[in-house]
């Protein structure tokens, strides 16, 4: 947590994420185990209701584990509250703080550790980096979808997380801007350089943002590999259909 680490361009060696989670959501029990190493993002893909988001919530500590464990490097996160996990989570519809400006949203994590002035100053490089400087004084309700996504990402990364989780980052965007934003997001994820897990139901997102794919169906992992490996040998009808649909 040095000063250097607080800058967007800082990229030291980052630990891997080891997740082995069992959580229940209603009647569905969700079990998934995977490792993610830095600079090789993993896409968790699957149909609606498969439990993808629950896996992210479990890793972030927002829902309790039934069993299993989560580690970052050698650090065990079991029993740690979300605020002490150093895991950044970008929500599906971003969940920005509606009462705070863009600047204060991005400064939020720093603000939790210190004074307001220092936090605002620390937010500046992030605002520059994500092209948000001109929007610094706006409120979330005054932002477009793409702008909101940038704020959400900047807000999460300004907290200096060791692991970044993205929940359906494209789904709240208009179709016209998706391709452009996907490229931009891929750049930011690469720059982050830490272990990254992304939940999506789109093979296109997975292809652009991740190195490998984990397929989750009805709470169970049904296949794992690169997209090419999945194409070569789809393990389930869902995988087959999904890949076929995205080929169009």
């Amino acid at each position: 947590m040095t000063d250097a680490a607080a800058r967007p361009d800082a990229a030291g060696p980052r630990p891997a994420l080891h997740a082995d989670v069992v959580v229940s959501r209603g009647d569905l029990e969700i079990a998934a185990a995977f490792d993610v190493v830095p600079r090789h993002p993993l896409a968790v893909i699957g149909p609606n209701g498969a439990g993808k988001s629950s896996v992210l919530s479990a890793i972030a500590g927002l829902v309790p584990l039934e069993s299993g464990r989560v580690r970052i490097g050698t650090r065990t996160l079991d029993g740690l509250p979300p605020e002490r996990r150093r895991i950044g989570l970008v929500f599906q519809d971003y969940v920005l703080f509606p009462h705070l400006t863009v600047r204060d949203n991005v400064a939020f994590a720093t603000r939790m550790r210190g004074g307001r002035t220092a936090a605002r100053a620390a937010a500046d490089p992030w605002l520059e980096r994500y092209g948000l400087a001109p929007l610094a004084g706006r409120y979330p309700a005054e932002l477009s979808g793409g702008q909101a996504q940038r704020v959400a990402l900047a807000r999460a990364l300004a907290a200096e997380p060791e692991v970044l989780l993205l929940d359906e980052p494209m789904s709240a965007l208009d179709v016209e801007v998706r391709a452009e934003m996907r490229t931009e997001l891929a750049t930011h994820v690469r720059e982050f350089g830490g272990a990254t897990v992304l939940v999506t139901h789109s093979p296109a997102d997975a292809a652009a943002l991740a190195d490998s794919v984990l397929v989750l169906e009805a709470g169970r992992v049904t296949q794992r590999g690169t997209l090419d490996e999945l194409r070569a040998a789809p393990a389930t009808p869902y995988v087959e259909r999904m890949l076929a649909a995205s080929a169009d």
Partner: protein
Amino acid sequence: MAGRLSWPVAVAAGIALAVLVLPPAALVLRAPWADLPELLARESVIQALVLSFATATLATAICLVLGVPLAALLARAADWPTLPRRVLRAAVTVPLVLPPVVGGIAMLLLLGRRGPIGRLLEEWFGVTVPFTTGAVVLAQVFVSLPFLVFAVEGALRSADRRTELAAATLGASRWQVFRFVTLPLVAPGVAAGAVLCFTRALGEFGATITFAGSLPGVTRTLPIASYLAMQSDPDEAIALALLLLAVSVIVLLGLRDRWLPGVRA
């Protein structure tokens, strides 16, 4: 709009409006306007006004400090089993539906010198509660706290809980989540609740006269002064009532614009 109302609805609505508007209107009409400056400058009136404002302000502050956390508990209780949830809700609702004079009697029995707590307070600290300005504030807190709690609870329930989760992932402790996210998000509800709370405290009569008594400058608030003046000097009573009416209207109008914009959108 009016054209779409059937006539029985329109008539009933008109009567309802008359029921609400006519009594204050009568107060304004019968007010001794010419003597008003002299009446309002009387020491007994100013004393009651100052006392009422001070106690209602203090009561509102106490309600804020205690009521917001209680509202948070109540909002959280949505996940609780039915029985404790209902008991909690009923406990907060009771003072709302209880005649204030009953509340006054109840407080007298609890905090009076023969009451279980009042006796201890007197034995240990030599403190007696009834017939003090503190008793006025307590009575006001008792009757006005539920207004604040329910206003804030409504705001809490409608606020997106995920903003709290997002704050937690950004390193905010529970207290910080409450202080920097929950509280600002429910600020409009808190403001509305505080206004209701203040006006209710200002108008409090039954619990106060029962529990705190009536002594000029100490426990005789505007409503009590107005009630007593009605027996000896109706003009003064009307002047006091007018003062209460004016304060309520001013507070309501003055704060409305501040809480309505709420979360900027």
